[in-house]
């Protein structure tokens, strides 16, 4: 896992993405968060949303393991991060595709670009 020093905007955006995905998992797929957490914990020693923001490759690996099908796993990522796509259009889509490709830097950069304001608002609330 690449530990890099992150600015405050990035930290807030990544925390917002963690909240967003947890919330969508809880509401949209009851029980799945528990299962994904145990898979992530077993293999990477962290919870799944933590894995998403810190190690996208590991996150995708966990989803591939859970669904036992790469296509389904990728479709699920797009569903899970739909708010990012809706908020950012093409940039949002690039962020999601970067996540699917395991490119943490690009995922973070595009996510911050798209969600910075929204995440700050969420953080203040």
């Amino acid at each position, binding site marked *: 896992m690449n530990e890099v020093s992150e600015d405050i905007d990035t930290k807030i955006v990544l925390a917002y993405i963690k909240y967003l995905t947890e919330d969508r998992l809880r509401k949209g*797929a*009851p*029980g*799945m968060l*528990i*299962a*994904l*957490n*145990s*898979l992530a*914990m*077993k293999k990477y020693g962290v919870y799944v949303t933590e894995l998403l923001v810190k190690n996208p490759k590991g996150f995708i690996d966990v989803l591939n*393991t*859970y*669904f*036992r099908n790469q296509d389904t796993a990728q479709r699920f990522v797009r569903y899970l991060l739909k708010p990012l796509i809706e908020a950012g259009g093409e940039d949002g889509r690039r962020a999601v595709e970067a996540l699917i490709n395991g490119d943490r830097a690009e995922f973070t950069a595009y996510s911050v670009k798209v969600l910075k304001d929204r995440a700050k608002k969420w953080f203040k609330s």
Partner: protein
Amino acid sequence: MSIEMCPTGIDELDELLNGGFPRGDIILVAGHPGAGKTTLSAKFIYEGARRFNEPGVYLSFLEPKNDFYRFMRALGMDFEELERRGLVYYIEGIQTSTFEGIEDALKEFMDAIVKINAKRVVMDSATAITQVAGFRLTRELIKNAMVNGLKPLGITGILISELPIGTPSVGYGVEEFLVDGVIILKSTIENGVLVRKMEIRKMRGTSIPYAELYFDISPGVGIKVYLPPRMEEIPAPSEAQVYIPHTKEIRYLCGGYLRKGSQIAFIVREPASVLPLLIWWILGYIARYGGTLLIRTYSKPPQLIRQIVKTHAKKFNVELSRIIIDSMNPTARPLYIMSQYNRESDTRINPTFLVFDSLQQVPMVLNNNWDDFFREHLNNLLLRRKLGITTFYIYNVKSDEDIPIPLDIYDLVIKVRPEWRGGKLYLYLEPHPMTIVGTVKPIYVQYKEGGEFQIEVVRGQ
């Protein structure tokens, strides 16, 4: 590609399922209250840990851990000891009226799986979750957390569901479609005896020769499944070994000789009795060919049989140790237990000859249920053919009517009726060959003093 199996730890069930549940599958165990769901599931976890060194997690929303451990100890399963060794983890799910309590229990369940590297799990029960979460949410939970969540970890699981008495469908009817296998447990009272049945409704990737099995729960053993012998093909009597009777009259009765493993039925109209004649006939075989005789009676005390045996054994100079007498009260046990006892006893003793006396008592005590009797009888008969046990079955009847089962399962049927001739009582034995090809003739038998017989062949027939 062969499927890896996860043994249930119930040997007969594993034999039936070709080794157990397919590994990584989720099996729904549903049943009426008290049908044995918890015991079966506990056995799966217990034997998995004890015999196969596979850690297991048991999540129960219904039973406190202390009660569960106490009940299971009485059934011969010491969970405490396995828990000390880190092989078992019991989670007492807190019953709350909110979904949050369920989620917390599920989280603890998944954490425990990771912690002890569990290979098998039980969730007891889907019904308890449904009562709090409703069936839609429960369905999602089961699918997402249990079915999809456990498969990647290669964990084999049992999901328990209540089957309300009188309800044909399982739980809310959704669990059946999510899981890989469905086992229904049922308990009924038949003739005053508790009868337990197991139905295997679905088991992906496994062929099931028998979908309905009897089972029992008993102290020290836990759960025992009664598995009928598994024979696709009907075994034939031996071509190599034949038994020629010691008198020409009996040779006429059976077409010259009997092949080893032959199955012969006597349908005897009361008050005639063929048992002394039969013992004499068989001891003649033993004197000539060696071997042992097992006499299993459902109507007579062993002392009486022993007396008859002694008389004839002396004549043929056969040691009494070659004859085993088994006297059983047919009302003492349910049919399936009696049937299993006979199978185990036949296999263990493996006598050369076997006599079943008063076999009609068995269906009679089952409220004249010849259908259930026939199913068990046929399976056991085929096993005896396979084991090469030459067997004589005596049915005592009150009239000349046939017994209501197909007689072509036997190689020879001999109908016996009492007949008065010149003021003396004779037995008239009329052979009906089913598979034997030799010439047969009826005979008359008169019992004399001192266990002697006067036998004459009926000519011109």
